[in-house]
């Protein structure tokens, strides 16, 4: 009997970057298959190849034992493959029912969309998933959990045989995760093949039957879940033992650099107060969507806040003015380096000198010649691998791109550096380099506020961990007390039940 879905040696490259070198995956009907790997291991690219978004450069792709070649997402859908992407892809102006049925709405005898039957089916589908959603409401404003239910309803109504969930639980609360896992099991019992991507091992081990590990765009291993342990999986993912990854050096912790008091923004975060001292690395931990990035963005001034104060070295930072925050010594390495950290179609030098353009200028004037020296110096210090300084950022690998972003901010000589998911989507080698850099930076007396979704990174780097849950700080855990269990517990439970700190 052939497998439901089978991929061998699949490769996909973008420019000089090979997102997938050689990926293998074998999925059987009636199973839930975990796909794990670090960020940047190529999971999402693989998913997009299966879903018809990308066409593969090389390798075999079999569906029910027959070779397939999807030219579009519609093609993949037609073959019974449904993907629920990390970012739900709904149409905000259309109703829930229409979002489920776009392009396949039932017609009446008169060639008119049969709204009644569409509504009924939508209601049945969401109820079947245990989450009744009003089929007539606009998709705009649905919670992420509800959006995912709509996506799953869409997949079920398509009669998909293969359902891929790309980190569906990243932004969900405990109850919502349980609900989603229930849905996944239900689908498995109906004989569908489910691919489940997650960073949370407890979920993976509770839910999945088989597990495939990827690293650096390559297939590493596939095992029945019962035959492996979390430690073994982590070793396969990382390719070496975890301790080596986080060379956090002891740094002398000095005076308070960043002082945040009672920061609030309606509906986003509330009454957030914390301090970061010179030489200290403070991590904001929590689920995706808990408000970590939002707090950091407000502190830096990219976003607004309603009340509260932010001080650097005792000086109040004006609201909503990143330029003022920078002048006082703040830097920000943002979460999404392609959109927020870099100008992808501009050269390395242009990118590195953007944040220091006022310092580079002589008598108010800048020439590209003036930009060369600082750009070359910082590129060199961070070992950016590029031939020329006018090479566009999109031509570089993810790791090198991140080094350019770091160079850009280190060039500003910050007192406080905020780093939001600094190692997302970069290879293991560069990851270690980035960790070393951040650690060295703290060693020179810079205060570091780090946001990370990777627990090992949080535990390895942080002097102190602050957990955020639904826009509030729930715990303040010192390095010696920090453990994976404790951080996860605080990140998912209301503060009153959190461990006393």
């Amino acid at each position: 009997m052939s497998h439901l879905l089978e991929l061998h040696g699949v490769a996909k490259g973008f420019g000089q970057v090979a997102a997938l070198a050689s990926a293998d995956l074998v999925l059987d009907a009636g199973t839930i298959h975990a796909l794990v790997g670090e960020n940047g291991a190529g999971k999402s690219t693989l998913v997009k190849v299966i879903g018809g978004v990308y066409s593969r450069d090389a390798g075999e792709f079999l569906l029910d034992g027959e070779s397939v070649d999807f030219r579009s997402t519609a093609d993949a859908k037609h073959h019974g493959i449904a993907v629920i992407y990390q970012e739900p892809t709904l149409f905000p102006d259309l109703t829930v029912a229409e979002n489920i049925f776009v392009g396949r709405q039932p017609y009446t005898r008169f060639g008119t969309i049969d709204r009644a039957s569409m509504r009924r089916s939508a209601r049945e589908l969401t109820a079947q998933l245990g989450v009744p959603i009003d089929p007539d409401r606009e998709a705009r404003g649905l919670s992420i959990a509800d959006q995912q239910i709509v996506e799953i309803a869409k997949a079920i109504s398509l009669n998909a045989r293969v359902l891929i969930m790309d980190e569906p639980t990243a932004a969900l609360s405990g109850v919502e995760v349980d609900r989603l896992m229930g849905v996944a099991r239900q689908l498995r019992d109906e004989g569908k093949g489910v691919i489940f991507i997650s960073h949370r091992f407890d979920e993976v081990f509770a839910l999945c039957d088989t597990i495939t590990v990827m690293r650096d765009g390559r297939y590493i291993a596939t095992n029945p879940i019962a035959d492996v342990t979390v430690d073994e999986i982590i070793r396969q993912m990382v390719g070496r033992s975890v301790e080596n990854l986080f060379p956090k050096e002891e740094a002398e912790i000095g005076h308070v650099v960043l002082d945040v008091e009672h920061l609030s923004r309606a509906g986003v975060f509330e009454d957030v107060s914390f301090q970061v001292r010179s030489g200290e690395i403070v991590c904001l931990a929590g689920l995706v969507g808990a408000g970590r990035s939002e707090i950091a963005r407000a502190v830096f001034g990219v976003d607004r806040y309603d009340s509260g104060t932010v001080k650097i070295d005792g000086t109040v930072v004006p609201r909503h003015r990143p330029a003022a925050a920078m002048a006082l010594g703040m830097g920000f390495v943002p979460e999404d380096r392609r959109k927020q950290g870099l100008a992808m179609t501009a050269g390395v030098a242009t990118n590195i000198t953007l944040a220091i353009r006022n310092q580079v200028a002589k008598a108010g004037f800048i020439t590209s010649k003036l930009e060369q020296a600082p750009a070359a110096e910082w590129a060199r210090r961070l070992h950016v691998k590029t031939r020329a300084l006018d090479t566009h950022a999109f031509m570089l690998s993810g790791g090198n791109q991140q080094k350019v972003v770091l160079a850009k901010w280190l060039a500003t000589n910050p007192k406080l550096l905020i780093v939001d998911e600094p190692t997302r989507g970069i290879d293991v080698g560069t990851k270690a380099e980035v960790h070393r850099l951040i650690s060295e930076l703290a060693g020179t007396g810079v205060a570091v506020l780090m946001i990370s979704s990777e627990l090992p990174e949080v535990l390895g780097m942080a002097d102190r961990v602050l957990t955020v849950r639904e826009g509030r700080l729930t715990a303040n855990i010192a390095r010696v007390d920090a453990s994976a269990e404790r951080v996860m517990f605080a990140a998912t439970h209301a503060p009153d039940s959190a461990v006393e700190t």
Partner: protein
Amino acid sequence: MTRTQSWWEWIFRARELSLIVVIVALVVITTLTQPQYLFSEGGVRDLLRTPALYIALAVGEAIVIITRNIDLSIGSILGLSAYFCGNLFHQAPALPIPVVILLTVLFGGILGSVNGLLVAFLKVPALVITLGTLYAYRGIAVLWIGGNFIRPEWVPKEFTQLALSGLFGVPWLLIVAVVVVLLAAWFMTSRRTGRELYAIGSNPDAAVLYGLRTRRLTLLPFVISGTLAGVAGVIYVSIYATGDSKVGLGLELQAVAAAVVGGVAVVGGAGRIWGVALGAFFLATLTTALPVLSIPSLWQQAVVGVLIVGAITLDRVFFVVRQRQARKGLSA
């Protein structure tokens, strides 16, 4: 889920209702000022037939805007189509009237598809393409027509009768416009393709991931708006039986105004066809009412500008307020 709505929000959401009220008020006030406006030979007829032209243009424009694009060339397409129609009557008097109408409408559709093909296949912003064809088509009209114009004697009497007579006092032209609105509204609300047009305007990236045929869905609205501009050209000749190379100049702005006043979101994804029709009716009524209210027709374009800027600003303000309330509600 019930959310309390403030009164202004309710009024705003019931855009069509407010438009009807405004139109009625406008007609009443104008008639009180100058009874001939309504109660004269052809008063009601004029009130009912002028909107036909605007409605045809506005519906096409609205469909383009719903897909997050813009078509600035429809005024020029109308001009070219009108002369094409008049000239056809002149050059080929033997052709039956329905054939002339059909050819003109087809002609408009072809001009529109040039826009659509360029936008859809070259992924070039619609603004640039249709700004280019706005002038190119107008230039072709000027070169072709020169100092010439459509002469009333070219146009057959039966054809101008379409504008003069009607069914139970409703001019044929308005009936044509109503048919256009009904067809377009049915297509946009009750056909899969129509819903896909809303979808692509609502979230273009999702449309690609979802596997919608984005090229076809980008092309189609331009073909529709060109075709309807052709229809408007036919309507124009039927009403006026004359016209030079300037016919339709600047009407694209009126169409945009009608669409946004009628509730189409400038960022795409939302808007109802019958709201647009009412917006067009309102604009057309305003055009005829302004001179009667002793506001020189010279101010007409300024009024159009105020309507566009006002409608999009209000839309945006209400949207932001609603978002903010939703966020506050979430935190409470």
